[in-house]
């Protein structure tokens, strides 16, 4: 099993560890509830070094990244990040990623750990005709996410004064004590925060300093609750190899007015098969795989991610429901073991988060 550069730190903190995407990762330290609340109200730090980093450089760097993603990268300003699905020609989703336009000819792509090989294979096969260099630096970078309303204050204390005034989804290179870092005002929690990419030793030093400053170490369990409370999709759950972005509430990331991009033709004529719905329960906790029913108890879909919301203290979930079977009256039920429970349909994320 792979280990991140912070593995020893996690063990020393007594984290519960488990395998995730081939890495031995911290699932929780002080407890899921405590960690979620730290991020919502204060500041927490996650080791997400397992994620993959590809660099695209050269004349056509921006053009190439714009071509492989469905969202608009060409028109993003230098110093901005863009979230996008990565699709096959038929529109099915290979992965979702964030691309960071660091310079006019330098782009960082951050991909899910579980999809590094799949993405690399796909992307590196698409470079013909583009004047670019594509490099996989996933093993060379550590990555931490500092998240929560006190992030700016803490990072300023650390000496990263550039964070003041950086806008939401901005991305840029910086130095701390002579070490090169990439900072981005992005995250997976709905709160304000930064993701910091750097060499293994520099990230380890920053991690330790953050903990000394009282930042709460947070594991993958709280990260999953946080992202689900604000309804961010997770590849392998809401997104997978079988469906398109249009099935998973990601129409906003498919920019059909772009001149050309992989999957454009397929998506232009695609009739969505599924609708991603947000449901909560007054009693019980929906879990992945539970069946979603209509008011006549016909099976119409499945829960893709479910948890107890720490903030709402209610069961919440995302579910993929067959588009043709979505009830007009938006009356959904979820089967939990022997019981069928009425669900509340939400048009907005369960909580709004405080990001800039």
């Amino acid at each position, binding site marked *: 099993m792979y280990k991140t550069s912070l593995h020893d730190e996690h063990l020393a903190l007594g984290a519960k560890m488990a395998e995730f995407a081939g890495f031995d990762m911290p699932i929780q330290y002080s407890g*899921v509830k405590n960690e979620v609340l730290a991020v919502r109200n204060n500041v927490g730090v996650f080791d997400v070094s397992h994620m993959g980093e590809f660099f695209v450089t050269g004349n056509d760097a921006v053009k190439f990244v714009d071509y492989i993603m469905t969202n608009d990268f060409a028109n993003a300003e230098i110093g901005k990040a863009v979230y996008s699905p990565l699709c096959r020609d038929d529109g099915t989703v290979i992965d979702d990623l964030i691309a960071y336009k660091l310079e006019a000819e330098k782009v960082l792509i951050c991909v899910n750990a579980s999809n590094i090989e799949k993405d690399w294979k796909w992307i590196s096969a698409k470079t013909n005709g583009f004047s670019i260099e594509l490099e996989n630096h996933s093993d060379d970078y550590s990555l931490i996410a500092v998240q929560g309303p006190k992030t700016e204050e803490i990072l300023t204390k650390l000496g990263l004064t550039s964070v003041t005034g950086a806008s939401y989804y901005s991305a840029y290179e910086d130095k701390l004590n002579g070490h090169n870092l990439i900072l981005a005002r992005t995250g997976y929690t709905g709160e304000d925060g930064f993701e910091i990419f750097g060499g293994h030793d520099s990230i380890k030093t920053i991690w330790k300093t953050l903990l000394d400053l009282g930042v709460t170490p947070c594991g993958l369990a709280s990260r999953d*609750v946080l992202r689900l409370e604000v309804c961010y999709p997770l590849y392998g759950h809401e997104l997978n190899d079988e469906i398109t972005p249009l099935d998973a509430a990601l129409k906003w990331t498919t920019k059909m007015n772009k001149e050309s991009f992989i999957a454009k033709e397929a998506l232009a004529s695609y009739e969505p098969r599924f609708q991603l719905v947000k449901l909560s329960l007054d009693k019980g*906790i929906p879990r992945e795989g539970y069946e979603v029913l209509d008011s006549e108890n016909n099976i119409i879909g499945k829960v893709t991610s479910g948890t107890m919301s720490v903030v709402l203290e209610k069961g919440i979930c995302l579910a993929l429901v067959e588009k043709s079977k979505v009830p007009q009256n938006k009356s959904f039920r979820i089967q939990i073991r022997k019981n069928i429970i009425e669900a509340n349909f939400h048009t907005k994320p369960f909580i709004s988060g405080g990001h800039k």
Partner: protein
Amino acid sequence: MANIPSNLKYTKEHEWAALNDGVVTVGITDFAQSSLGDIVFVELPSIGEEISKDSTFGVVESIKSASDLYSPVTGEVVEINEALTDSPDMLNNSPYDSWMVKIKITDTSEFENLLSDQDYAPLCEE
């Protein structure tokens, strides 16, 4: 180290059991609550329900996961701890006071065959 009282019996699924006048009181162990983390939901059977040894009689859920509860003995549910429905975190705070169900046991030898504290302790080594 997990707390394992010597006056109780145990299952390999991390339930504890105590026998009084033909009624077995069942809960989850300190090790179980610690492994689960913040417990946020408990589903218990109905009074009068007949349950058999090793079958699931309920569910205990943490924020991130759901775990089945397995009956240590065969018998009829005569009482359930309804307070747990409103305050499932009691299971984290005092697992051995927070009993879940009381089962009128059919065959007391089933209780005698459960694990002693000494047999159970090795199952709590991580």
